[in-house]
């Protein structure tokens, strides 16, 4: 069984191939190039390295969000186009869970987060090596998230490349209950994505698969607000 994993939820890029349960090639980049330019050539390069033709892929895994809207759309568009036209199964995995998986040797609460600007984050809270969801992926004000985490009154391992922006605030609220994953664990890895995808069901209708943005487009949110006002 050959899996192709595609991770483009934020500015890093990762592509991996797992064959019969073994990771045989993985690329992890954090050089902030445009995904639209780099993702397809990277997929081509990775498959060429291990001499696998597109038609030999058995399943595709993609990070479905949250994250950068454009990044998510590029990954999801490529993944769903490949899955549909090669007639292969597709699995979407939470991009927060993918990053949390980097810290799954920690046997406690793991919080992965992405900066969503203006003191907001996308965050998910998981527990232990099985990454059981504790708080569902959501868009939070950082303050609200930290207050909720404080209520658990137990150590929380923070992971994700944007954690650094909130480190002071985290320590302020959680004190020595806050733990931080080391630098090399911050980037999302397509190998982790595939590992998680193997445990999830295949998407039933590839055509209707879209990113999990976790937020309405601004214009739509404003429009809904107007509608409520008029009622």
């Amino acid at each position, binding site marked *: 069984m050959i899996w192709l994993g595609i991770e483009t939820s934020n500015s890093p890029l990762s592509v991996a191939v797992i064959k019969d349960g073994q990771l045989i090639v993985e690329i992890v980049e954090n050089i902030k190039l*445009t995904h*639209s*330019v*780099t*993702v*397809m*050539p990277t*997929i*081509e390069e990775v498959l060429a390295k291990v001499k696998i033709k*597109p*038609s030999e892929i058995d399943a595709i895994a993609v990070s479905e969000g949250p994250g950068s*809207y*454009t990044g998510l*759309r*590029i990954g*999801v*568009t*490529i993944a*769903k*186009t*490949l899955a*549909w*036209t*090669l007639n292969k199964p597709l699995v979407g995995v939470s991009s927060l869970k993918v990053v949390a998986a980097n810290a799954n040797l920690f046997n406690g609460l793991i919080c992965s987060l992405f900066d969503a600007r203006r003191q907001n984050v996308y965050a998910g809270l998981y527990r232990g090596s099985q990454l059981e969801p504790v708080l569902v992926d959501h868009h939070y004000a950082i303050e609200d998230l930290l207050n909720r985490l404080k209520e658990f009154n137990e150590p929380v391992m923070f992971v994700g490349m944007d954690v650094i922006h909130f480190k002071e605030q985290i320590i302020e609220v959680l004190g020595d209950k806050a733990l931080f994953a080391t630098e090399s664990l911050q980037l999302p890895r397509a190998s982790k994505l595939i590992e998680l995808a193997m445990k999830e069901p295949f998407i039933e209708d*590839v*055509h*209707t698969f*879209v*990113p999990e*943005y976790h937020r309405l*487009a*601004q*214009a*739509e949110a404003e*429009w809904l607000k107007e509608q409520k006002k008029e009622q």
Partner: protein
Amino acid sequence: MENETLILAIETSCDETAASIIRNGTEIVSNVVSSQIDSQSRFGGVVPEIASRHHVEKITLVIEKALKDANLEPKELSAVAVTEGPGLVGALLIGINAAKAFAFAHGLPVVGVHHIAGHIYANALVQKMDFPLLALVVSGGHTELVLMKEHGHFEVIGETRDDAAGEAYDKVARVLNLPYPGGPHIDRLAHQASVGVEFPRAWLDDSYDFSFSGLKSAVINYKHNMDQRGEEIVPEKVAKGFQDSVVEVLTTKTVGAARKYQVKQVIAAGGVSANKGLRTSLEQAFEKEGIPFYVPPLNLCTDNAAMIGAAGSFMYNVGVRGNLSMNGNPGMELKSWSK
């Protein structure tokens, strides 16, 4: 036929998700368009983030339908053509990445097509293009006079210095409280008045360039003055006055350019070329000039993938190729592909 060219074309530069199959550059085998107008009209215009989200929802469905309608398998195709620019960058990226993924999956080449070249080549699907040829491109984003001496040769001899004609239509429609998109409504109202309000014409004497912002301001000022005097405007007369000004300038400049460059054919392209007032005026003018004039049918004037496939076929046949690192190019210039 042995050396048949079959192109799958994809277009997502604005708010239409479209795919088409074109045989030998001139024959539409299938043509699928999924429009977002119902969703976008509540915002009074195209919201880029909403457009991008819709494209992801529709893209594979539209491509699948194009293949099914054509009763073709991917392996029978020659190449995948896709709009590379100009357009909304987030929207372009969906078509481009779907095109690259599809092409990679089946070992096909990709060809990046300029959206305006597409609009012009919509005409190749209707009749033989005859050179030298003059194209008047009018849409929400463009007002250009393009001279072509042969296939793949483009020379922009005139363009708008401010608003595109379609943009001016949309803004005037807002002044008249008409729904989005405003063009068809203004066209309809204009035909209901016998005399229009007198508005200025921007001739920009020695050039084939256009300017519509002065006209737009004149309409806004007119409404403002009437409001201050407590008088009601007659929308039909405003629409007619505005449209007469746009049509007269477009027609006069196109006729002038056609004479100067002694073209054998004049074609109109882009969404606004579906406008009845403009179409009639150009038809009459060129009948007098004795120069053949064509406008493609409505569904080939508005954004579609068939036109991208037509241009893409001609590019493919002379060896133009893109690659998997093709990016969306929102400000792409119209360049010749013939040497």
